[in-house]
């Protein structure tokens, strides 16, 4: 079908987005050759969890919120632990922070490898999906699976399980990995680091549609290096504030078409969290190997083409494998697997960098630790307005494309954000309606 959208009024509607982590649909309305409206409709579970958390004990959020997403359970665990610990006035010792960072590296490796190789690369190499791509690019897909496996192995070792890790608790961990176990995973991580460097070379050679996004970039910045397990908030326009002030800067609005809330930062139309924002605001904190890989890939101090997010994700893969090895090599054990976090009345805030961007949690506790109120702001709801803004520009410039090709490219543009909408099955079902 070569139907084009340049004449008349059209509605472009993709009912369920393939290769997006969860369920969502895209709706584009074109009137007289002008893009009139773009909507990304998503069905998102964190809101349900906020209600579910009220009345539960202060020790439960790491376990409960990890169930929100099978791809980034560690992010939910880490942000919830930080928030509860801040409410209770506890900071975990340095060695437990390092172990959290190590676990988080596992999640980044697993999630980035999945997205780069199995979800996003097929777009750039011209395949409908990874299964078809694997037939022609076996070694490439095998490299992706090997990386993902290394991430899973690290999550299993530190977190107890790869999906929904069970070893994480408020105050630290139930059990510490032994130095012997940690060193046992070194060869796999060394291979993964080599694979990650190869990944940057691969994706840097892809063809990228021309596009520059002008949105404000928002990420954490931490004295402990490239942001994963904590930090304070910085933005590309020079704003800087503590995580405790997140709620005064970021306002969420309910939008009728979606059960997700859309976030605004200080009244701005949209902002971006995730790899591009992290890189722009923290590239100086990448390890030497990741910095070298970024330079070789042609990345400057910032990258504003959302299609090149796959390159930045690959650079972060180098950093996460390298950082994991660095932490393991420096590991000297911990005095105890956790510190006590006694309940007290208070409000606590926590933010960490999920693979897809900043994930914020806020809890209000009663004196006995009962949760009175919970707020979770996931990265995808923060990026939602930006995804729509990108699509508006992108579609307008490409209205002369055949409809099927335009839909394919729109999906690719949505996948730039690696949106994690929920954990569910999804099917592509496209309908185009002429108005």
């Amino acid at each position, binding site marked *: 079908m070569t139907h084009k959208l340049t004449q008349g009024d059209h509605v472009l509607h993709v009912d369920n987005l393939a290769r997006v982590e969860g369920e969502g649909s895209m709706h584009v309305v074109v009137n007289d050759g002008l893009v009139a409206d773009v909507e990304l409709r998503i069905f998102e579970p964190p809101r349900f969890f906020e209600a579910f958390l009220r009345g539960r004990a202060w020790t439960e959020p790491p376990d409960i919120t990890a169930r929100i997403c*099978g791809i980034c359970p560690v992010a939910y665990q880490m942000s919830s632990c930080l928030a509860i610990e801040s409410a209770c006035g506890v900071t975990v010792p340095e060695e437990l922070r390092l172990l959290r960072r190590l676990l988080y590296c596992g999640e980044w490796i697993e999630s980035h490898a999945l997205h780069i190789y199995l979800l996003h690369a097929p777009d750039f190499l011209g395949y409908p999906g990874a299964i078809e791509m694997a*037939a022609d690019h076996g070694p490439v*897909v095998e490299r992706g699976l090997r990386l993902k496996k290394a991430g*899973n192995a690290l999550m299993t070792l530190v977190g107890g399980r790869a999906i929904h890790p069970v070893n994480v608790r408020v105050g630290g961990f139930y059990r510490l990995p032994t130095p012997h176990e940690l060193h046992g995973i070194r060869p796999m991580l060394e291979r993964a680091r080599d694979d990650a460097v190869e990944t940057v070379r691969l994706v840097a050679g892809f063809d990228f549609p021309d596009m520059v996004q002008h949105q404000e970039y928002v990420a954490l910045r931490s004295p402990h290096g490239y942001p994963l397990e904590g930090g304070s908030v910085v933005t590309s326009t020079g704003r800087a504030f503590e995580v405790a002030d997140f709620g005064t800067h970021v306002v969420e609005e309910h939008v009728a078409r979606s059960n997700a809330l859309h976030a605004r930062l200080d009244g701005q139309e949209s902002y971006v969290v995730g790899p591009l924002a992290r890189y722009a605001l923290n590239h100086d904190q990448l390890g030497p190997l990741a910095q070298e890989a970024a330079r070789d890939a042609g990345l400057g101090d910032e990258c504003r083409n959302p299609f090149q997010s796959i390159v930045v994700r690959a650079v972060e893969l180098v950093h996460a494998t390298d950082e994991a090895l660095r932490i393991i090599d420096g590991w000297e054990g911990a005095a105890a697997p956790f510190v006590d976090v006694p309940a007290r009345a208070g409000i606590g805030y926590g933010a960490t960098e999920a693979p897809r961007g900043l994930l914020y949690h806020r809890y209000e506790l009663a004196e006995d630790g009962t949760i009175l109120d919970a707020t979770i702001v996931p990265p995808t709801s923060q990026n939602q307005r930006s995804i729509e803004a990108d699509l508006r520009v992108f579609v307008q410039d490409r209205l002369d494309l055949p409809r099927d090709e335009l839909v394919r490219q729109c999906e690719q543009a949505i996948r730039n954000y690696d949106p994690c909408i929920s954990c569910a*099955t999804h099917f592509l079902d496209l309908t185009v309606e002429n108005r």
Partner: protein
Amino acid sequence: MTGQVLVIGLGNPDRGDDAVGVQVAREVAAERLSVNVLEFDDPSEALDAWEPEDTVILTDAISSGGVPGDIQVIDAIAQKLPTGGWAAGGTHALGLAAVVELARSLGQLPRRLVVVGVEAAQFDHGAPLSEAVAAAVPAAAVAVFDAIDDPEDEP
């Protein structure tokens, strides 16, 4: 018969009927000690579990619109699995069907690969198995034994 016999239970034990694949694998392990049984909550882990000469039975929840507890046995060597976007059921990021078809594309299928699926009713967080699905576990284990013992397969 060459190679080992491997039964792999897939599914997230914390999401309702998604746990059924793991339950069936455990039932098999309890009844027949000679079978190697593995459990994965991420199906992609299964890719590295087998060797080319192995006989592999994958057990998992399926969601095909059928009656909860219905058992489907699919010879995955003879027949491609419907990947419908990605996952063919369950709550995994990379579903069983996608993993099997990736293995086919990569030339990494084992000698025999049979999928024993149990139709699920719900994938609710923290929920136990639905009654009809729990009741189907013994029959699903029998289907696994039938697949292992298939006389047609003897060389």
